[in-house]
């Protein structure tokens, strides 16, 4: 029999998280700090609208680009939140999660051999999606000393004459890093000068704890070269509804729409009705959840300080990214031993790129009570490692 597989897909590595997932799933009493989704239920009024739409028999396809009502609400949101003007008819596409938007934006924009800049550590899908689109992913290794922000110099250093797109993953999963307005201004200059396009993944845009998130599309000259990606999963705790959107220049959205209509047809109808309610009446829910995340974030930062674990203060998403390099183990070894000895699961930084080596991702999408138990165990573990290290030095 012939090999049934595509050479391209076979070269793509499975997600680095898989291994831990398998171990943790087997371990009955393990507690996890490894989850990348909110612990809150979708607010009831949003769920209720989804249910109501089913009761009314809204069980058919919507138009390919999404419900008109939802696209209008998305534009209203972007206007009130960022002062951005998009045309709901030609510049908005409702997708199956932000993930689909990332995939089809890349597929719509690159030619074989085009280089796509991907700052890492970052979400696991950018690199494989670029490869699947026949682009060449070029990794920019972000640095802890810059709080994992992307600097203009790092960007400049990575650009070649084949570079076409920069993926901008902020607020960042896994580091929790944000890009403030001045950071964005610095890179926008380079982007315009070098005539690049940006795929800006702002799925955590509602979850920042210092200043309100700034979209790079807000900056002068940037909207026309940016695909802004956002969605409902993180802000409204709607991960399972699989709903996101992309906004950008009409000629790009038009081509993305073609891929979307042939591959997907349309985003789930029930989810779209629920999302209309989220956009209309969900601001308070978001504020409430943000406050709770912020309390947990402060708790974690304080706990790390007390146990002497170095960690830059992250101001976005719901992750902290402490450094464990001092213990002379790889991230993978640290995470494995922590799981075996204390039964707590964290994700090694390397799951999000090689430059995540020396770090672990801890999610605070858990109640304070749960965090306290897990962090207590982390303190015990770290204390033990520090003692081991001291004894090792004495010998």
């Amino acid at each position, binding site marked *: 029999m012939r090999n049934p597989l595509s050479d391209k897909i076979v070269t793509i590595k499975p997600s680095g*998280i898989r291994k831990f997932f398998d171990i943790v799933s087997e371990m009955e009493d393990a507690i996890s700090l*490894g989850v990348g989704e909110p612990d809150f239920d979708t607010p009831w009024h949003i769920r209720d609208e989804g249910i109501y739409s089913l009761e009314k028999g809204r069980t058919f396809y919507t138009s390919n680009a999404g419900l008109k009502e939802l696209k209008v609400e998305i534009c209203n949101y972007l206007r009130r939140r960022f002062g951005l003007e998009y045309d709901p008819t030609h510049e908005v596409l409702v997708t199956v999660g932000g993930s689909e938007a990332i995939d089809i934006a890349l597929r719509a924009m690159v030619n074989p051999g085009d280089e796509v800049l991907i700052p890492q550590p970052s979400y696991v899908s950018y690199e494989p999606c670029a490869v699947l689109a026949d682009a060449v992913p070029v990794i920019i290794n972000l640095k802890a000393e810059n709080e994992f922000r992307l600097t203009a110099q790092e960007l400049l250093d990575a650009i070649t004459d084949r570079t076409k797109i920069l993926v901008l993953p902020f607020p960042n999963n896994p580091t929790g890093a944000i890009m403030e307005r001045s950071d964005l201004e610095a890179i926008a200059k380079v982007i315009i000068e070098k005539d690049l396009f940006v795929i800006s993944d702002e799925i955590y845009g509602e979850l920042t704890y210092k200043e309100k998130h700034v979209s790079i599309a807000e900056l002068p000259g940037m909207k026309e070269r940016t695909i802004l990606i956002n969605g409902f999963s993180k802000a409204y705790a709607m991960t399972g509804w699989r709903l996101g959107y992309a906004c950008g220049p009409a000629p790009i959205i038009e081509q993305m729409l073609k891929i979307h209509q042939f591959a997907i047809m349309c985003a789930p109808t029930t989810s779209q009705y629920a999302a209309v309610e989220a956009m209309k009446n969900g601001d308070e829910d978001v504020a409430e959840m943000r406050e709770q995340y912020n309390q947990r974030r402060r708790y974690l930062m304080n706990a790390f300080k007390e146990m002497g674990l170095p960690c830059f203060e992250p101001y976005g998403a719901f992750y902290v990214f402490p450094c464990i390099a001092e213990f002379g183990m790889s991230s993978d070894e640290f995470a494995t031993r922590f799981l075996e000895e204390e039964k707590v699961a964290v994700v090694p930084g390397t799951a999000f790129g090689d430059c995540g080596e020396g770090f672990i991702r801890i999610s605070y999408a858990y109640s304070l009570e749960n965090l306290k138990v897990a962090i207590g165990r982390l303190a015990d573990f770290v204390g033990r490692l520090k003692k081991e290290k001291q004894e090792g030095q004495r010998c």
Partner: protein
Amino acid sequence: MREELLKIIEKNSRIDLKELAVILGVEEIDVVNEMAAMEAEGIICGYHTLIDWEKTSIEKVSALIEVRVTPQRGQGFDRIAERIYKYPEVSAVYLISGGFDLLVTLEGKSLKEVSAFVSDKLAPLESILSTATHFILKKYKDHGTVLTKKYEDQREKITP
């Protein structure tokens, strides 16, 4: 800080002061002072415990009583409300808009005891026109907390 602080202790009045300061991002002494100030101002009225008595072996019956009254000249509903809330069996008295005037919540050991209170003490009060007693059969949710189900984390244990 007030609003945030109140929201937290409304849900968990036993929270450690040091921890409260950490999660609010302020100094412990500021939390102590703010709480003392709010106690003095009567904003914080107590630190109660939410108990599901159903799960204990102690017999308890709760009732909601709708009360219609004739307001008294110069004193409105206040005087009659005061007469009612002074009974220790009464746990809450609210002035209500709509079809009746006062909503009284009551706790007793048995149906008999609650009925006796209504017929012997409450109903005969002058200026009370009528009462309607509703016994609580089951508490699903109380003070924002669901009593019937425990939270279960249904998420996959590790996701990117």
